[in-house]
């Protein structure tokens, strides 16, 4: 079912990604990954890798299985088949719980606590006990600064705007300096300035802290901000490469066009097995 030419080996790494070839270790490796929800097979035998220390974008339309894939990596998804290694351990291993930060699509914070009280509690779960009081304080202060909510630290989370609440949720995930950050549509519904700021933060986290980021989005224009992309559709990975390589290989100007090209090619292959050519007109 793997119908993309270059895989994890990344034979067509472009110049800007090649300057970091020392970071070739994979943070996440999947082989024939499947997931079933109810009667429906949501993930259909995926093979992919997420390189360590880079930002990998998981792009695809709503309902294509992005969230299920992320939940499988975090270890909260039931009925997962195939192999899935995360930071050298099988996904869901108890050892991983303090090493992964996960931000769900809807902000998961306590609306009846202030921003700081939310972070204080989650920090106490990560660093319990009196001995870590100082670490907790430092981690909470840094997380609040990271997401630029210092002026709202003592406001109830429920009184904040949608974008501010999702930043509180992000701050919680940043608390433990996780090795892997899994962010489910973190920029949806945010204004362009905030979106740019958040992407700058993601890049800063990857560069300064060596964190691996897996960021999902259904907005294709965010693709250009990632080091690497996983293009997903209907429970399958359409392509796995750098944005430059995807554009170049499909001879398109944007990743969105490349995506459409790949979808059409896959549809054509499904309709006429054996013929390699795809219709040229883009889908409406």
């Amino acid at each position, binding site marked *: 079912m793997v119908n993309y030419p270059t895989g994890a080996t990344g034979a067509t790494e472009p110049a800007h990604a090649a300057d970091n070839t020392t970071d070739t270790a994979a943070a996440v490796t999947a082989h024939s990954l499947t997931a079933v929800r*109810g009667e429906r097979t949501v993930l259909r035998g995926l093979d992919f890798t997420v390189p360590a220390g880079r930002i990998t974008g998981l792009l695809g339309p709503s309902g294509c299985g992005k969230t299920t894939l992320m939940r499988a990596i975090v270890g*909260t998804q039931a*009925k997962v088949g195939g192999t899935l290694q995360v930071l050298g351990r099988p996904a869901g291993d108890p050892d991983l719980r*303090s090493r992964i930060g996960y931000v769900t699509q809807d902000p998961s914070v*306590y609306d*009846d*606590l202030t921003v700081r009280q939310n972070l204080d*509690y989650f920090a106490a*779960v990560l660093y*319990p006990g009196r001995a870590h009081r100082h670490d907790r304080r430092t981690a909470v202060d840094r997380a609040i600064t990271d997401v630029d909510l210092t002026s709202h630290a003592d406001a109830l989370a429920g009184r904040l705007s949608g974008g501010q609440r999702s930043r509180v949720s992000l701050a919680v995930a940043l608390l433990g300096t996780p090795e892997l950050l899994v962010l489910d549509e973190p920029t949806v519904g945010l204004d362009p300035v905030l979106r740019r700021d958040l992407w700058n933060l993601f890049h800063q986290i990857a560069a300064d802290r060596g964190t691996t980021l897996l960021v999902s989005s259904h907005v294709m224009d965010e693709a250009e901000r990632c080091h690497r992309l996983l293009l997903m559709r209907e429970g399958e990975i359409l392509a796995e490469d750098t944005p430059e390589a995807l554009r170049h290989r499909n001879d398109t100007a944007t990743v969105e066009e490349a995506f459409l090209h790949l979808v059409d090619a896959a549809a054509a292959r499904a309709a006429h097995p054996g013929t390699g050519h795809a219709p040229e007109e883009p889908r409406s």
Partner: protein
Amino acid sequence: MNSARTLATAARVLRQLRHDPRSIALMLLVPCLMLFLLRYVFDGSPGTFDNIGASLLGIFPLITMFLVTSIATLRERTSGTLERLLAMPLGKGDLIAGYALAFGLLAVIQSALATGLAVWFLGLDVIGSPWLLLLVALLDALLGTALGLFVSAFAASEFQAVQFMPAVIFPQLLLCGLFTPRDRMAPALEAISDVLPMSYAVDGMNEVLRHPEITGDFVRDALVVAGCAVLVLALGAATLRRRTA
């Protein structure tokens, strides 16, 4: 289990409540108001007030904690914070013990207020120690917390969670011996009441009401209520799944 995480969870639950003073006021004052009402409803028959008043001291904490816990844990499930916590290094036992601790503390305050009011101001005639009344009330509160936690797993919305109150609590209320002694019910109903925990809560209260010392029956009643609370808490823990569909 990690005691620091348990305490942090209890502190967090109490902190959430502190932002909601109206709920606290309702939880603490409504039982007192009911007892006050009851005292003057039975103005002419103080014996009846003794019986029903003592039983109610055991029933109020159970009902209040059931409601509060089922809604609070349901909110934890629907807001995604439960999934987040279970993806973090938090034990299920830490979470449940944290809730039980926080609501247990609240139940102690509620029971102390209600018991104090009934015994010292409304003339509830208790032969045994008021401390034993408080102990049973606390065990009842734990049972309520446990039941609330358990049913919240089967409620998809707060609307459904509230509907579980009549389903789970009312049958026990009817059969616990509050309205008529259990041995005078139809034999089938008496048999059912023998396996419902609230019956033992009310029996325990009545033992304290009538006997100056700790009786064997009181110990049995207290142990049954405590055992049920632990059993249901364990069942509640089993409904917390790290991996969900």
